[in-house]
């Protein structure tokens, strides 16, 4: 254990931060913070953006960034919900409705594959910088959503959808959490136990060298954009169950939050680096902050952007200071030098 933390200093740091955040809310909120409803509420919430973050992590490791996932996810959710609403009615049996819902989710996944594929083509075949390409695609998807719904929420989902979303698997695991656990295990497996994961890190470090090593970089980057979009679309479908509807701007606050989580976990869009355990801890930390802050009556939702923006800035400053040529890195070098002399 001690050895593990010696090797993974950043993970240790995140755990300390997690403990600090927990301590802060325990002291300020007391037992209210540790109530059962609070905990189950958190477990319902973080799988939404947790799934999206896992997808974006793949993009970051490959040295790319996706700014379109929220808009794409919303668009896919709107289409899926419209499909489900149009093909169900009150007289249908639960089994039949379940079938329609399954097809709806499949549609969302297919749209994700398509959207990710377009992002990948723009970046690899047309050589458009990923930030630009995906911002443009984000506007396009948002435009489709708004045009299709005139900005209104799409409602009328069968009760079954949110019932399943609020059910427990095996009696104690909230359904969204269950989906997240599956998504997490698959992501961890892809990164750690497949050639895809190995190549992803290498491409993120030096795409040119990977190309010269007979690695199909274009294909793998397109695949990565697809994985990212599929994860985030599934996250948005979880969101649909919480909201019982789909709307053009539901997930918009998640864009910055997901980037914040990844930066906090030390995963930067420069590529080549990212530990999935760190991402998990960062997701939990951000969820706790999000829930905890909501408990203060003085702070209402209008401050949300300010809080997340400020946090992102602080984390960015700290993470650049800690890595590369930053202040802390230099200090660490000096310390090592001093230790070496003695």
């Amino acid at each position, binding site marked *: 254990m001690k050895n593990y933390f010696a090797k993974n200093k950043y993970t240790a740091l995140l755990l300390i931060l997690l403990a600090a955040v927990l301590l802060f809310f325990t002291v300020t909120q007391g037992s209210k913070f540790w109530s059962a409803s609070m905990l189950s509420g958190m477990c319902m919430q973080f799988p939404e953006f947790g799934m999206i973050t896992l997808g974006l992590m793949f993009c970051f490791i490959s040295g790319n960034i996706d700014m379109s996932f929220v808009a794409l996810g919303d668009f896919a959710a709107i289409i899926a919900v419209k499909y489900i609403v149009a093909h169900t009615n009150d007289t249908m049996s639960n089994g039949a409705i379940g079938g329609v819902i399954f097809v709806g989710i499949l549609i969302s996944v297919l749209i994700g594959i398509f959207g990710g594929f377009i992002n990948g083509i723009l970046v690899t075949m047309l050589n458009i910088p990923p930030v630009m390409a995906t911002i443009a695609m984000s506007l396009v998807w948002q435009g489709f959503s708004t045009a299709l719904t005139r900005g209104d929420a799409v409602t009328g989902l069968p009760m079954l959808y949110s019932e399943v979303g609020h059910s427990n698997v095996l009696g104690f695991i909230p359904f969204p959490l269950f989906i997240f656990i599956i998504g997490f295990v698959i992501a961890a497996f892809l990164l*750690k*136990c*497949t*050639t*895809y*994961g*190995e*190549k992803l*890190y*290498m491409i993120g*470090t*030096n795409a*040119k*060298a*990977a*190309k*010269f*090593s*007979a*690695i*199909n970089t274009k294909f793998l980057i397109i695949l990565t954009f697809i994985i990212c979009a599929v994860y985030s679309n599934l996250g948005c479908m979880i969101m649909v169950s919480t909201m019982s509807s789909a709307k053009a701007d539901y997930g918009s606050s998640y864009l910055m939050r997901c980037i914040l989580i990844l930066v906090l976990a030390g995963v930067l869009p420069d590529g*080549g*680096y990212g530990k999935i355990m760190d991402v998990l801890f960062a997701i939990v930390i951000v969820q706790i902050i999000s829930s905890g802050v909501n408990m203060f009556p003085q702070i209402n939702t209008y401050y949300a952007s300010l809080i997340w923006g400020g946090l992102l800035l602080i984390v960015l400053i700290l993470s650049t200071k800690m890595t590369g040529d930053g202040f802390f890195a230099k200090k660490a*070098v000096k310390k*090592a*030098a001093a230790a*070496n*002399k003695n």
Partner: protein
Amino acid sequence: MSEYLLEMTGICKSFAGVHALDHVNFAVRPGSVICLAGENGCGKSTLVKIISGVYTKDEGEVTFEGHKIDKITPAEATKLGIQVIYQDLSIFPNLTVMENLAINSEITAGQKVVNRKRWEKTAREALSKIGYDIDLYAKMGDLSVADKQLVAICRALLFNAKLIIMDEPTTALTKKEVDALFKTVRQLKEKNIAIMFISHKTEEIFEISDDVCIMRNGKNVYAGKTADLTREDFTYHMTGRKLTNDKFVPKNVSKEPVLEVKDLSLKGAYENVSFELRKGEILGITGLLGSGRTELALSLFGLMKPKSGEIRLNGKSATISSPMEAQRLKIGYVPEDRLTEGLCLRQPIADNITLSSLKRLSGKFGILNHKDIYKDAQIWVDKFSIATDDPHKYASTLSGGNQQKIVLSKWLSNDLDVLILNGPTVGVDVGAKQDIHQLVHELANDGLAVIIISDDLSEVVQNCNRVIVMKDGHISGEIGSDDITEDNILEIIR
């Protein structure tokens, strides 16, 4: 006043407790060319950085023009007349030649307003110092490395430089350009400017330098006149071991060619290139930069599509559309630029070695066990004696020669018929260079067909049993075994 322009005695410098320089003595006579030589990591760059004020020395004494200097800062070094031309040349590629030449003196003069005429005057004055002629309005990034270097020299001269330090200036130059550079160096010498030349190319050092200072492991091992030294002594001082220069003699050449190239053309790069390559051969391809040799190699590796012509492998016509295809056809390529094309520096050594053989190392559905990566990599680390205690360390922790061994093992761990090496020993020190050459000889004798693309004529002469010379995209000559000498090659190039 002493006979020396710059004199350094007993210089020590250590980083994190490791001695980079251990009581080094170094002296430069005015108007002479001194060469600082040594293998990678011997402390050459550290010494230069102390002279230029980037690092401060821990111990020792520095005297410049008879005055003792306690502490040098980069600004002071410039004022004293010390100018360093680094390998990356520190130029602004998006600005014009004129702007690059004038910008420093404009800033030092504290000018706030741009005056084109004054800039042009400064720039012309700079160029006139070595009688060098170039379009002032050309964009710096578009120039050849050689031209960039000359502009950098001119810029250094604007500051009344008394000592110009050149850090491995010939690395990216062709023979012709090197000659031009040396002409300039001799010109500067006549103006009583001392030149300090950092290099590890033996021939160049003997051609240009008056004095030589050889370093090994942070210590002086030789200082004196170049003329007093034989080439054998020189390499011995550099590496600390006697080197053998065995010329490559092919032992088992196959009857049928493994690779045939027929009338291959790509407009603007190369035209009507035809040659054959047999197993067990080492074919050299040489020529000036821009002769189309790299483009030809890229075409054989599937990164540049030829317009017309045919490539045949083992008698069968082949289209090489991508590096993946090349790998399937058993062609490997060690690229020209190790750092940007060959390695993922911030990834472990082991992962770099196995990057091209993941398919072999993985099970069904691409499932991979990282232990297999390290097991496989360790084989190559041992086989090539790559200097690392742990292949989990980053590739960036290694020296140039060892890094090149990684790129080589990456390809050799595949089953290959043809191996293309583009500049296999650029930036590699003498000792590692010999290791690599020895290795390539063994590979060829084990039945691999090898192509070496190189500027380094001595490398081509020593290692190839056949040489193709390229010029302006055409093959301008082919030389076989006994006729391969540097003079014969040069004759065709010119």
